[in-house]
């Protein structure tokens, strides 16, 4: 390989102490500076690790005016004190943050693969990347010998399924040691569009391929390529059960084994993660009218039967230990082996495709009416290897298909593409155009927010209609659940700090199906507790799925089944067993609350984080079109009568829609008031000084920003 070393840094290898290295790694690919930074007690006390460290480092690195493509923008990747333990399922997550090209505020992604744990065990609690390289580079961390290098990378292919595998083979000591190397990469689309992702690899010893997990949201791949980074590579060969150096290994092992056994006993009858991963949700969502179809118009269609999870189960190779980190017995990351794409540059070549997960099956399947599971697999493959986020791709394509249906787009405007519902050839062509840097794919790859502006300005489309059907908030595309009938989930999505992603709160069943949180106060409490609880996973380097995608057999009989109390107790136990620090379920929430509020203030600092940023498009709240209203007329008429107190008899559909809209939008605003109050924020969504002091996030630099808004 024609590779030059541009900078080299040697560091002292030392064991981890109770989950922490007490240092982070800073790499500036522009100035070629590489250095260590100490992790202070304050950082651990206030920011814990993971997303907390990422945001803390990034706050120091950027200016108020920093845009995604400025050299000082950072990509931070951190792991958290619990990350990398091999005892408790779901403990191998990295958290990636950057100033997003889609939203202009910090985005955070929680991603599997081996890069995070290996980089942690190589000696660092976080990796901070800054600068813009003059030529394409690779950053290499050799955790076996203690060397960090910036190296030129002139020759490699960019697309991830090739690059990850090539680099693993290049940097592994020998053929039987591929599993000790992990790669972060993106793909050709990240050179050209904004709806991109990063792929974190892990070497699959059985399949003998590099598997790819995605830091999907917010355009991280585009920032990566803007920096001129082709890949990050880490090598670490010393993994053992105690590499994280926990204070109480027996308790950690005992708690992990308890969950392994619970999964072994319960997964087949609960979520079937072993067999089909998160795609098990397809028929459940369709049954409950929650599966997005035709750009979130409908939640259920008979055609969706063809995307039933049994179809994906049949495509996935069964019986493999499909964990994205060692010790995860939930094994949800399924793969389609020897898949032969029918389009594009890899047409006919057998490839291993990770997923599709639920979000991909819904976003790139039902939402665009792609009813053949193999088409979904193909879109999934090309999204991954080109570095495109399947969620944003699905929602963006659904948006342009609805624009096409309404005559806002036509073949003349799409460069000849027929964007009728279900035209998967066209959807795939958009994807290939993103990779080639040409055609209408470049427009779609800008994401829904920018397309709304372009279609209104250049094609004279009705801006209000585009606003209503364009499923984005803060600039980020919605992930794939219908929130129309769940007010709490409308908040769960739209109040999420980075943009509408379901990782802060998924309350649809609690709210809509079980009616467990009927009042504004109940919903506000849920929209406080669950985002805080779920934030904790990102501070520790954990995955959310083993929390409630497997439940103890007696969970339903507990006081608060939605919280899965036994698993919360497990987290308290493993935190104490690893770090030796005190912990209980209240402190757990408080840890999150500090970082959550810091992130909120960070958003405000970068020009977001306002109440106006927390407003959903109406498609997420209620029926935008008469077609939508009429499709569920009985439900909407009943709501008019029973909830709003208006007799639908004799009213036109337009009149009924208007009343429904005013009611629902008002309900949403009342929800926002209740949630802000519960979170300790003003009516404008600004954390109060008193609240910041109470939770211990009253750092001078934070207060300085907040005071600008009070």
């Amino acid at each position, binding site marked *: 390989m024609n590779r030059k070393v541009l900078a080299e840094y040697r560091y002292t290898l030392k064991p981890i102490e109770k989950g922490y290295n007490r240092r982070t790694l800073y790499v500036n690919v522009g100035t070629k500076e590489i250095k260590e930074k100490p992790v202070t007690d304050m950082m651990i006390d206030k920011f814990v690790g993971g997303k907390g460290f990422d945001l803390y480092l990034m706050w120091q690195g950027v200016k108020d005016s920093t845009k995604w493509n400025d050299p000082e923008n950072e990509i931070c990747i951190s792991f958290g004190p619990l990350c990398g333990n*091999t005892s408790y399922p779901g403990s191998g997550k990295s958290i990636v943050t950057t100033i997003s090209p889609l939203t202009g505020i910090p985005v955070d992604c929680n991603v599997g693969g081996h890069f995070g744990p290996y980089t942690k065990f190589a000696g660092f609690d976080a990796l901070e990347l800054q600068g813009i390289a003059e030529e394409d580079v690779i950053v290499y961390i050799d955790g076996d010998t203690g060397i960090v290098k910036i190296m030129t990378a002139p020759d490699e292919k960019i697309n991830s399924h090739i690059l990850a595998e090539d680099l693993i083979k290049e940097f592994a000591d020998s053929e039987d040691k591929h599993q000790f190397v992990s790669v972060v990469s993106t793909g050709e689309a990240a050179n050209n569009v904004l709806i991109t992702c990063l792929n974190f690899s892990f070497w699959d010893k059985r399949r003998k391929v590099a598997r790819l997990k995605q830091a999907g949201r917010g355009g991280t791949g585009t920032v990566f390529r803007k920096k001129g980074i082709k890949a990050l590579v880490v090598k670490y060969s010393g993994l053992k059960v105690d590499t994280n150096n926990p204070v109480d290994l027996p308790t950690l092992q005992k708690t992990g084994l308890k969950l*392994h056994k619970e999964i072994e006993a319960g997964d087949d009858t609960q979520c079937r993660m072993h067999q089909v991963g998160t795609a098990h949700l397809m028929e459940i969502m369709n049954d409950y009218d929650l599966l997005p179809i035709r750009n979130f118009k409908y939640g259920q269609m008979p055609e969706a039967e063809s995307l039933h999870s049994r179809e994906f189960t049949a495509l996935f190779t069964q019986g493999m*230990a499909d964990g994205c980190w060692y010790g995860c017995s939930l094994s949800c990351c399924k793969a389609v082996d020897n898949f032969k794409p029918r389009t594009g540059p890899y047409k006919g070549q057998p490839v291993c495709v990770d997923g599709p997960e639920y979000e991909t099956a819904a976003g790139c399947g039902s939402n665009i009416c792609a009813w053949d599971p193999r088409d979904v697999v193909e879109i999934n493959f090309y999204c991954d290897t080109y570095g495109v986020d399947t969620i944003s791709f699905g929602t963006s394509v659904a948006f342009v298909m609805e624009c096409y249906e309404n005559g806002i787009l036509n073949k003349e405007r799409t460069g000849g593409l027929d964007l009728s519902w279900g035209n998967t050839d066209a959807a795939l062509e958009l994807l290939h155009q993103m990779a080639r840097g040409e055609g209408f794919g470049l427009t779609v790859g800008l994401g829904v927010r920018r397309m709304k502006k372009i279609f209104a300005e250049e094609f004279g489309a009705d801006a209000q209609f585009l606003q209503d059907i364009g499923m984005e908030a803060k600039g980020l595309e919605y992930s794939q659940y219908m929130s129309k009938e769940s007010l709490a989930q409308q908040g769960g999505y739209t109040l999420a700090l980075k943009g509408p992603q379901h990782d802060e709160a998924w309350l649809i069943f609690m709210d809509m199906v079980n009616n467990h949180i009927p009042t504004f106060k109940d919903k506000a409490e849920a929209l406080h507790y669950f985002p805080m609880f779920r934030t904790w996973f990102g501070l520790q380097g954990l995955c959310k799925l083993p929390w409630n995608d497997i439940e103890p057999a007696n969970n339903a009989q507990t006081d608060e089944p939605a919280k899965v109390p036994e698993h919360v107790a497990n987290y308290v136990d493993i935190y104490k067993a690893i770090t030796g620090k005190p912990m209980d379920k209240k402190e757990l929430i408080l840890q999150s609350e500090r970082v959550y509020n810091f992130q909120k203030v960070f958003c405000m600092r970068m020009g977001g984080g306002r109440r106006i940023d927390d407003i959903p498009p109406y498609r997420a709240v209620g029926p935008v079109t008469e077609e939508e209203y009429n499709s569920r007329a009985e439900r909407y008429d009943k709501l008019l009568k029973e909830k709003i107190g208006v007799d639908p008899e004799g009213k036109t559909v337009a009149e009924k829609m208007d009343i429904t809209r005013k009611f629902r939008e008002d309900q949403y605003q009342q929800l926002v008031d209740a949630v802000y109050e519960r979170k300790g924020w003003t009516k404008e969504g600004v954390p109060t000084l008193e609240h910041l002091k109470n939770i211990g996030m009253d750092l001078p630099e934070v207060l300085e920003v907040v005071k600008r808004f009070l």
Partner: protein
Amino acid sequence: MKVLKTYPEKCISCHVCETTCSSLYFKEDKAELSCIQIHDETNPPVMNVCNQCQACVAACPTCAITVNKQGVVMISRSLCIGCLMCVAVCPTDSMRTAFGKHNPFKCIACGACVKTCPADALAIVEE
């Protein structure tokens, strides 16, 4: 396939097999560190030991568990990362762990206990 076969009706619950096994592999006389374990609450006692069924092989995320030429399931200590997923999937609860130890352990049909059993309740057989 080479396997340690048990004859509970002959077992006299003397636990000598446990002593032999744990002493051989851990240099400690502790029943919980033995690959074979005798539960004498019942009559005849339950003699729990690996039957080499291989269910653990597919569950191992590092491919540390393999089957040797004689059909015996073996754990590579250098590859094992101690996750204990194999313990959870074992259908006979015969993959052992002792919390605090780095790796799980199991019967490899070495036959040491057969030689010390005073009641002929154990035998190495080909199945």
